[in-house]
């Protein structure tokens, strides 16, 4: 059984997260640049005519397929390495995964 973990973190923390994951033995990942916002409805900045809401802030999105037994561990590694304690630290999602197949070989993990 496998899980797909999707983490959305601060770009500034990516290097640390990546290093932590690699050290703990989870190097495989797919990464993309995204923008996002969380529950606090974006950040409100002051402008002349009252508050302005900033909607979308650059983030890094990490996608990792891992065996279900390690999902919890990986989530914890990411959360610890990505945390600053301030708004915008990000989220980690775990999705069920039916199957992962290598392209190079015929290998398939279910």
């Amino acid at each position, binding site marked *: 059984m496998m899980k797909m973990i999707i983490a959305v973190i*601060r*770009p*500034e*923390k*990516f*290097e*640390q997260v990546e290093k932590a994951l690699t050290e703990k033995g989870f190097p495989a990942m797919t990464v993309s640049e995204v*923008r996002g916002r969380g529950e606090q409805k974006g*950040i409100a*900045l002051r*402008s002349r005519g009252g508050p*302005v809401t*900033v909607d*979308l*802030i*650059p983030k890094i999105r990490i996608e990792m397929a891992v065996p279900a037994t390690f999902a919890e561990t990986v989530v914890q590694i990411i959360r610890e390495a990505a945390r*600053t304690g*301030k708004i*915008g630290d990000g989220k980690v999602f775990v999705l069920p995964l039916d199957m992962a197949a290598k392209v190079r070989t015929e290998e398939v993990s279910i």
Partner: protein
Amino acid sequence: MPIDSGDTAFVLICTAMVMLMTPGVGLFYGGLVRRKNIIAMISLAFIAFSVVSLQWILCGYSFAFGTDIGGFIGGLDYLGLAGVGMDGDGIPDLLFMAFQLVFAGLTLAIVTSGAAERMKVSSFIVFGLLWTTLVYDPLAHWAWGGGWAASLGALDFAGGTVVHISSGFGALALALVIGRRVGFGTYTMEPNNIPLTLIGGALLWFGWFGFNAGSALAANGLAANAFVVTNTSAAAGAIAWLVASWYRGKPSSLGMISGAIAGLVAITPAAGFVDPLSAIAIGAIAGLLCYGAMLFRLRRGLDESLDAWAIHGMGGLWGAIATGIFAVAAVGGVDGLLYGNVHQFLIQVVDACAALVYAFCVTYALAWIVDRTLGLRVSEEEEYVGLDISQHGESTRV
């Protein structure tokens, strides 16, 4: 001397080329910051240039080139360009004024390095006006407007002290007052767009020919010499930094272009006084020295983020001193240390140090005052969101 059409043609175009260096600095810096600050970083260069463009014709030119007052600053003769006309000596007075204007604008743009990714636009405008008036204008007067440095015999062909020491050490002072970026040292802050930095670097290298050769103020052999040594020093600096960064890992393109800028900075004061072979030495040493300065800055945890200090400050310092070492009478009429003229060498050291101390201290004071009154820095939330959105309401992608 009447107006010479060849010289005038040359300085007109050189002025335009130097103008192009200011957006060049903006692009260079814009590529080095994080993606959320790229527009803001480029804009600061344009804003710096626009503000100085107006200040210079209203009063800056007069402070720099008006009748000398105590060796320190120019008088008010030329306020609003009074008496600066289409006639002149070789080139029109208005053109000389314009050539000096583009230098002043560029210099303020370099200073923005010290406040990258964290300064309020409004405060930058106020700070910039004060800085160009109280730091740049006096320094320009000292060297070129008949001030004490000129009287002493200090050599600064195209602005090693006036432009580079002032902006480099100014950026350092500003960085110290404004403080580090949030997360500096713990987060990674990767350049967002190296090709943009290389475009900026190309425009700088191109414009620098106008900067240095144009400082001959005539299309003659001296200008040709300045042109050649400028290119040579840039090439030597590029190769030196490239090789040095190679030695520590890989030959980075940013190292190469930074080395080129270091070479260009260092040759600036010397361009009318040294020959091409000396330029190889000046440029190569500049590349190594500024690379070392950058490593030192990083080790010390100084967040003078885009290395105006390491490259312009230290490169300008080395250039001022190198002028006192490598100057040769056959080129500019003055010999340096290598040809036995210790005196000139000492003058150069004194001049450079005076400019350094003045620029650093006054910048520090100005930044401190603006910080206490208006606040230099954006809020932490604005910094996190990025200045593109928080200062300009714009962004580079959805």
